[in-house]
């Protein structure tokens, strides 16, 4: 743990989320047809914070959902059974612009699974991706639309986002 590097403190995360909220609104020219879907678990907390910021900026509360991607993983046989969480998207996705939210993008496989899950549930107009950290090493042609910070990492390093009661408090680079 002595080799940990703090990438983001609480204030840094807050500033990054505020910027991302602005960028989302700018790119989509407002909140029309916009929905937020966070990837369980972590991305769902960030998605809720983004929704709160959009309320502050635009005065509009956009729909918020959660997707669990366990059932869409491509590594079930090698990972053993992982607990399956609930997918909760209490609104139709057809014709919506989905902002998919995750903490960290790495190989891109989680996002691939989430895209499959969303497309099984409905037919959105488009899906955009917002992440707090992009650490590189992509294995699939997937690119985030909104990034809190790009952090170059080695493969054996890890990025950890720490939450306290669903509030992100710190992001660390952990060397193994």
């Amino acid at each position, binding site marked *: 743990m002595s080799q940990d590097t703090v990438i983001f403190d609480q204030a840094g995360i807050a500033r990054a989320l505020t910027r991302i909220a602005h960028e989302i609104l700018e790119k989509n020219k407002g909140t029309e047809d916009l929905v937020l879907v966070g990837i369980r678990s972590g991305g769902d907390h960030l998605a809720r914070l983004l929704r709160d910021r959009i309320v502050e900026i635009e005065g509009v509360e956009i729909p918020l959902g959660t997707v669990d991607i366990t059932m869409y993983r491509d590594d079930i*046989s090698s990972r*053993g059974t*992982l607990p*399956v969480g609930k997918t909760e998207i209490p609104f139709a996705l057809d014709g919506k612009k989905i902002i998919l939210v995750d903490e960290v993008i790495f190989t891109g496989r989680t996002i691939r699974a989430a895209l*499959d899950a969303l497309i099984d549930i409905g037919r959105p107009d488009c899906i955009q991706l917002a992440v707090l950290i992009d650490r590189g090493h992509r294995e699939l042609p997937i690119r985030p639309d909104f990034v809190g910070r790009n952090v170059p990492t080695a493969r054996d390093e890890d990025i950890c986002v720490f939450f306290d009661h669903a509030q992100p408090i710190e992001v660390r680079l952990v060397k193994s």
Partner: protein
Amino acid sequence: MSFRHKHIIALRDLSKDDIEQLLNTAESMREINNREIKKVPTLRGKTIINLFYESSTRTRTSFEIAGKRLSADTVNIAPSNSSATKGETLADTALNLLAMKPDIIVMRHAVSGSHYFLAEKVNCSIINAGDGAHEHPSQGLLDMLTIKDKFGRLDGLKVAIVGDITHSRVARSNIQGLTKLGSSIFLAGPPTMIPPGVERLGNVTVCATMKEAIQDADVVMMLRIQQERQGKTLMPNAREYSRYFGLNPQNLQYARPDAMVMHPGPINRGVEMSSYVVDGSQSHILKQVENGVAVRMAMLYHVCGGTAVE
């Protein structure tokens, strides 16, 4: 805490944690069943053989749908009576099926314990869809999920089970599972249908009358009476059985006002339950069927992952 069992043969073999995990997963699976596209790719490329030595439309269909919703390839095999008389043993049948490289065999068999025998012969996962008078774990789990849906818990509930306990694998799985999750079980039935030592199977009380069993019960679970199985010696006839052990709106009043009524099906209307109760507001019988698919998806999911860990 991860699920580490390669097979699911009996709830007796599972811990409280294992059962809770299966129930939690089943709750997540239910969301898939409510989608327009009821399919996820989780078990893509996995092969599931449904090997049913006893006919069962309900359980087999439920397992088949569960497998298909998880994108597994499912094959149904019902060894005909003729192949049984030709003398192919269960072990030989299993070895032949293994040549098809299944990942899971879901089996129903008339002989108690035959799944343990099969598990020694094959390298795939085994799920018990009912063995003799031993256990029927998927039924037990779906019953528990249905109860949990209504009360939000299983701990501290009074569950009455009425009928032929001796020949009931449903009763045994429920006794094993419900006891582990903290329910109290009260049994009633003619003494000819109460097996010796059943109190020691779990948190079980054997009651002298049906009234005593369902008094203040949160759940009243009725078992199917099969004239062909109970024969001529366990009870005089369906008419007299129904008089003393049938559930009707009158004796249901002994239970708590919000008590739920359950039955593993298929129901003999007018024998173990009157139609007023079957179709009444307290009946959760169709909920049980609906939960069956979700529970079986959870079972398939957990044994499939478990294989790789070992």
